[in-house]
């Protein structure tokens, strides 16, 4: 079993209203040292090796389902193998 963490975020130029609202809230709490917040989501996907390389599965499910390339991009990292 391998667990891969897939990170999905808005593309650079896409407006992130959540990040904006959270930044404002952090400032109103007095944390002026915080310069900005961007929000993303991640998926910890547990994959059974064997049939095909883990990378391939990750690529396929990201492109078919988890990511909308019109506005999002993704990256991933293998968390653990056991």
């Amino acid at each position, binding site marked *: 079993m391998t667990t891969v963490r897939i990170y999905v975020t808005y593309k650079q130029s896409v407006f992130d*209203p959540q990040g904006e*609202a*959270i930044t404002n*809230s952090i400032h*109103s709490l007095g944390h002026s040292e915080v310069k900005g917040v961007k929000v993303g989501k991640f998926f910890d996907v547990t994959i059974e090796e064997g049939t095909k390389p883990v990378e391939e599965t990750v690529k396929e499910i990201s492109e078919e389902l988890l990511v909308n390339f019109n506005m999002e991009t993704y990256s991933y990292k293998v968390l653990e193998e056991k």
Partner: protein
Amino acid sequence: MKFAVIQFPGSNCDIDLYEALHTVCGADVAYVPSKESSLDGFDAVMLPGGFSYGDYLRAGAIARFTNIMPAIVDMANAGKPVFGTCNGFQILTEAGLLPGALKRNDSLKFVCKTVELEVENNNTIFTSEYQKGEKINLPIAHADGSFYADPETLKQIEDNGQVVFRYSKENPNGSLNNIAGITNERGNVLGMMPHPERAVEALLGNTDGLRLFKSILDHAEVKA
């Protein structure tokens, strides 16, 4: 008895609460923007539904830092009626005035419909006009209404009789123990996902929520 209806940025059921109290019940009520910091002169405080701060972090999470919150906490500590519906309930849990939390609905979808509730506890200042065990219908309209508390907290809430309303036919959101509304331990803070203020006029097809507001007003009269 004077009611305050709090307007957080993004509240949108403020008018519903206001009109239910003012036009339908003839009560004395005023809007109070959450930028204000005082509730002097008010006897009860009502937190409306809506999407405070867009619900952008978690529903109700950002609203609890508004100026008015300390005054609401003071009201709660003073034993005055504090009521939150929908986003108001979410804010009350985020602020720690009520136990537990409200998660995303199990369906992952916003749901707006009328559901059946059982009045579990009519021995509160909010529900004295109802019968214990009575079934009533109230509208819900939320995406984050699944009540969650860890097992220990849940047991406490149940043992103390803090569960006031339970979904009785179907559970529309995945709430633990079908919980639709709870009070604090002292019983003067009520949070509920359903919208009694949407059910106070025959013209709109449902008056089952009216007695909740009448109960609060009765209680004030008895006290006075």
